[in-house]
């Protein structure tokens, strides 16, 4: 075990002067992030393609970086276990994906409502029958309105950065809700890339449960007569109003996270050549495929820009509205059947007939850059 010192400021861990480069998989990037995260507990349950990341987190437990770690009995149970740990006032981590996400689903809006700053990685895969373990981001469509913050990594570098920084966002007093860090299964978890990581001998400052917007459940804080969270379901107006106000407060917490996403992730999105006639707007590995397509398009003289959306909740509404204003067409390639990202973009831009919800692949299919190129080419007659 490498001796670690607790950083005085989070920036010591995020903006290290002593960076190291590693040629690692996405799963290994999660391990690197968790090694520096100063978590107290991690709880695991196997689900492909997530399992390897939690094996590696288990190694960190064996090596002494994490005080407690175990395998729960199901995803629903694990999400309850991390909730219990978070209410007990410690920093926790878990990961799931695909059918695991759906098995555990009832807990995600519950985490948000309970104001739990849990960080969970979601490694997306197909969920529908017939069974598939292959990449597909359809589960993200279901999670968009659970009240959790959603970050979507393009590759292993993002996965490292987002996972580690997610703790800093989640634990702010005015935010204090869960952060889901999403990465496309296999494409990110099982492939290698060069990843810049911080020095291994520094870890995040510890979580302080007394700065939480709700009391920790430890009989050490006030009020003593306290339940998390009681039914608010009497059949009268004020009960409804209390529940409504509570729900609004979760939305408000998501909204307040914007400034921290800016601070720690440098913004909710990134752009390249944003003045171009045609913009590709994408998230996750669809961004990487789009980069290839843009090279091909440029060789053909097509002017294309790229908008990489890193944060889906909160959604970069104003940024997208602003960027879309100039574009003649917006192409949204996705690794799912429903096209949830195109839907989101169409719901915020003016004249959404400009939004092309294509190409879409699913069920594990790859997305050849030529497919995206074809959509870009189809936009050209309309733009000239």
């Amino acid at each position, binding site marked *: 075990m490498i001796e670690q010192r607790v950083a005085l400021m989070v920036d010591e861990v995020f903006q290290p002067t002593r960076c190291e480069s590693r040629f690692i998989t996405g799963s290994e990037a999660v391990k690197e992030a968790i090694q520096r995260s100063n978590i*107290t*507990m991690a*709880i695991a349950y196997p689900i492909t393609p997530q399992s390897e990341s939690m094996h590696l987190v288990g190694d960190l437990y064996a090596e002494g970086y994490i*005080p*407690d770690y*175990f395998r*729960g*009995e*199901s995803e*629903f*149970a*694990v999400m*309850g*276990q*991390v*909730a*219990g*740990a*978070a*209410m*007990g*006032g*410690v920093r*926790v981590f878990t990961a799931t994906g695909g059918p695991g996400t759906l098995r555990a689903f*009832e*807990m995600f809006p*519950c985490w948000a409502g309970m104001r739990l700053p849990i960080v969970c990685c979601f490694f997306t895969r197909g969920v529908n029958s017939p069974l598939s373990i292959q990449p597909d981001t359809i589960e993200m469509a279901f999670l968009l309105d659970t009240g959790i913050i959603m970050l979507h990594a393009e590759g292993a570098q993002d996965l490292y950065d987002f996972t580690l920084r997610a703790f800093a966002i989640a634990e702010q007093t005015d935010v204090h809700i869960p952060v889901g860090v999403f990465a496309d299964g296999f494409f990110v978890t099982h492939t290698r890339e060069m990843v810049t990581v911080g020095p291994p001998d520094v870890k995040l400052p510890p979580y302080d449960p007394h700065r939480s917007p709700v*009391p920790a*459940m*430890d*009989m*050490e*804080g*006030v009020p*003593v*007569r*306290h*339940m*998390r*969270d*009681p*039914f608010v379901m009497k059949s009268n107006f004020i009960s409804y109003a209390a529940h409504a106000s509570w729900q609004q407060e979760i939305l408000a917490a998501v909204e307040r996270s914007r400034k921290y996403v800016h601070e720690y992730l440098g913004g909710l999105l990134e752009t390249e050549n944003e003045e171009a006639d045609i913009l590709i707007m994408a998230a996750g590995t669809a961004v990487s495929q789009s980069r290839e397509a843009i090279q091909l398009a440029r060789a053909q003289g097509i002017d294309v820009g790229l908008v990489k959306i890193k944060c889906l909740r909160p959604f970069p509404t104003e940024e997208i509205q602003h960027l879309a204003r100039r574009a003649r067409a917006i192409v949204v390639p996705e690794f799912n059947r429903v096209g949830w990202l195109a839907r989101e973009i169409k719901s915020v831009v003016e004249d959404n007939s400009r939004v092309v919800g294509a190409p879409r692949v699913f069920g594990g299919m790859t997305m050849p850059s030529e497919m995206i190129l074809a959509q870009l080419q189809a936009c050209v007659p309309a733009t000239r």
Partner: protein
Amino acid sequence: MTKQIFRIAPGFEEIMPEEYRELVTDGPYDRSVGVADLGTFKELLEEHPLCAGCGLALSLRLFLASLPAPADTVVVGSTGCSAIAFPQVGLHNIHGLFGNQNAIASGLKRALKLRFPDRPKDVVVVAGDGATADIGLEMVMHSWFRAENIATVMLDNEAYANTGGQESGMSPRGAVLNMAPTGKKFEKVAMPEIARESGCAYVAVTSPANARRFEKAIRRAILVARDVGPTYVQVFCPCPTNFKFRPDETLGVIRKREKEGVFQYREYITPEAQQYLAASEGEKR
């Protein structure tokens, strides 16, 4: 020394609602009180909204009076009738989701162990029969397999009472209830036996009809869970509303069942727990 969380800040004594002033002056937090002292101290359950004659409400009162260390006890509940009374309980307590009480308690207990290594923090699950024997059975059993240091108390009213009286796994065979219109087709789930075989160091079946026995079971379960391993207490607390008997007949129903031999007080203690209890109960004497 009394923990500071039970002290009213100076100058606010007069404005605090009476129930809190009473909790501070007469509460059970750092005192050695039990069910025999009921009526002489401020109970942890304030006015509750459960039905008249509710066996579960009586059990909850007895349970709270039986805690060995209320000042360091956190209770985890589940969806059901008891969850409506829990906001009135003067302890930190959690309602997660229906059935995941033992999962939440597992994470919580481990977190508290790590944060307070030198001070026992008792984590006790109190949930109904639906939450424990049906929807949450997997998580209940796995917390026992993992030997989590938590005590699990089932308030067995033999039905899903809060949702309107449906059959549960703990309903008696033949009981006609909602969703069992022609009577339940199988026996009560053998939870005490399951608990024993799943690694519980202490298992008891009890009822509020015998308060001393009830208290002993709760105290033993919590103490053994603290230092030896998981424990289980099954509390028979019938529901007048859904089983349609008069509110003043609750204890009579329990005694009648006992007479018929259908309900029996039972206790199972592993040798290790036996030894531990002999030492700790001997100390007290």
